[in-house]
Structure formats: C-alpha cells, structure tokens
C-alpha cells in the first residue's frame, strides 16, 4: 500500500511541477537582494530592489496585467526610499488593478 501511495504521489508531484512552470512571470528576479534587504534593511539593497521593480514595471506591455502585489510592494519600497509622491501613485495603481487590496493600502496611506 505504501508503495502504491508512493507512485501516486510521485505522479501528483510531477504534475504539480509541470503545472507550475512559467507561472512566475511578472515577479522580481533579484531574490538575493530581496533576502538581504529583508534581513538588514540596508540602503544599498533597497536601491537595488527599487531599480529592479522599476525595470520590471517598465517592461510590462500596455494591457498586460501586473502580478498581484507588484505595484504595492514597489510603492512601499519607494516610500521607504523617500519618494513619497511616486509611492502613493504606485499604491493607487495597485488598488486599480486589484480592488481587494483597497483596505490595507488605504490603511497604509492614511497612516
């Protein structure tokens, strides 16, 4: 029985991984900077991340839907780097694309 289940779950795992291929479009690639910035909150990594997000957002096609959270996270990083005007603009853009983000983004904007 254990062997049978092993076969079944091996097939299931394989199908999960095939199904997930290509689903990471529209997300930042610089995971190293994301981990390092999350750990130490250093300005150098913050700058790197802001640059990465900017490039990613500029690369989107005009009618391409951004990944959920993309503008929200970019907005927050801009806020942390002191660019308040663009930060607000990005957070508003997230709300337009994803109305479900409205409550937490408004809570942040009202802070």
């Amino acid at each position, binding site marked *: 029985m254990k062997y049978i289940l092993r076969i079944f779950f091996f097939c299931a795992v394989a199908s999960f991984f095939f199904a997930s291929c290509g689903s990471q479009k529209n997300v930042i690639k610089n995971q190293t900077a994301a*981990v390092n910035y999350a750990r130490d909150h250093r300005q150098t990594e913050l700058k790197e991340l802001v640059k990465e997000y900017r490039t990613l957002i500029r690369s989107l096609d005009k009618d391409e839907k951004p990944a959920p959270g993309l503008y929200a996270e970019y907005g927050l990083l801009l806020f942390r780097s002191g660019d308040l005007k663009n930060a607000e603009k990005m957070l508003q853009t997230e709300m337009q694309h994803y109305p479900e983000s409205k409550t937490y983004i408004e809570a942040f904007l009202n802070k």
Partner: protein
Amino acid sequence: MKTNTILFTIVLGCFLFAGCNSEKKAARYKNIYDEKPAVVMGAKPIDYTPRKSPKEKNAKRHNLELENSNIYFHQSLLNTLNTKGYYVIPYFNTEEILKKYTPADSTGANNAGVLRVFSEKYGVDAILFATIFRWKEEENQWSVYIEYKLKSTKTNNLLFHAKCKGVKNIPYNTRGNIAIASFDRGILKHLEFDTRTLNRMILLAKMNDFVLKNLPNGQSHKDFEKDMEKAAIPEYLEFSIDETGALSVVPISLEQFEHEWIIEE
C-alpha cells in the same frame, strides 16, 4: 512492447486505486470552500531550530544560514500562494503590518479573536502560519520538520493544516565540500548564497510548492471551485528529494512526526 503495456496498466491501476482511497479536496478543505478567502497574509515563520552560541564553531555562519533560509522560506510561501489565485499581501507590506499588529501567538495555535483585527483593519481574510520545528543534519541527508496552518481571521477556523517532514539528499564535490546538484542550478540562478544555505532554500521552496499548491484554487484562479473532486494531500507527510532530484511523498503518522522532531537527536 507487451511488457511496457502490462507495466503501464499496472501503474495506471495503482494510480486509480490509490486515487480512490485519497480524501477529496471538497472534504478536506471544506472550510476554505465555505469561506472563500480572497486576501491572504503570511505571518513571519517561527523557527525553533537551536542557534549556536557565539563561542561555538561556525556559529556566525550557521545562524546566518538559518536566518537567510527563513526569510526565503517566508517569501517563497507568499509567491506560491499568489500562483494559486489568492491576493497575497506582499512581503515588505506584510512587514509594515506586523510592525503594528502581530498575531498574539505566531504559531497560530491560540489566537481566538486576535486575528479579527487583520480582517477589520487590512481586509485580510486568512493568515498562513508556518513553524519550523527543527533542522536535522546527517551526513548525506538533511531533514526539516514544518507545520503549516491557514486560519480564518473572521471565524478563527482552521482552514488548512499540514505537518511535513522534508528530506533532501545533500551532494558533495570531489573535495568533500557540500555542492549544488546540477538539476537544482536552474532554480538558483537568482540566488547568490553559500551552498549550505542554497540546499536549505531548495528543500523549503520545493516543500512549499508541493504542500501549498494542493490548496483549493483562489478566486482569481481560472479553475476556482473546479478542483473540489481532486485528491488532497495527507495531513502528515514525508516529502523527499533523492540524489537524482526525483521527488517522492509518503503519508506518515502524527506520532512519527512528533517522535522524530521531539525525541530523536
């Protein structure tokens, strides 16, 4: 040719037979199908793995390795949930929310009523709690014991629960140092960490992928509510990556999970 046909029939038969015995998602994740959470937040994972004291050998390296792996683990949880069609509060925005409010018990074990604030103030429908109980390092094989809990902020119901033991074969190079397997290099092209940390990250990311991808599809997924008849993963399981990169999953008992992480040294 005939042998292949027989073999294929046996495998297919086993597959169907095993499938019939698996619990369906509709039953296992009833609370999720009922509540239909749309916005999900991931609490900062808790890691009970002991840290080395500054006087111990390689203490700095070891502790940094765990810290980096945990951050990546958290980010990977959120990315995986995102691909399932949930609106996930991004990592750095979560960090902001957690500065102000933290779930009273970060393991999600006992927080009746406390989670409601996340629903009222931030529109969060459910919070994912992840706890790493322990990392176990044996020469060629590393294991990690993790619990996942998704809790409703509105009803405090447990929406999803799994306890998983993850096992990874650790490759060594000709000099006897820990290396990265060739089949793992693709995943790691955007990560520049030492090989020990990377091996941990690979195991954590693959476990997250397997466990969380079994959740019901979220509201923005094209197959929302079309997966109820699919098989749910066992609540207690062992997930292994062998030396060829092949994955296997077997159900384990709660007793085995608890026995290994609490008692065995």
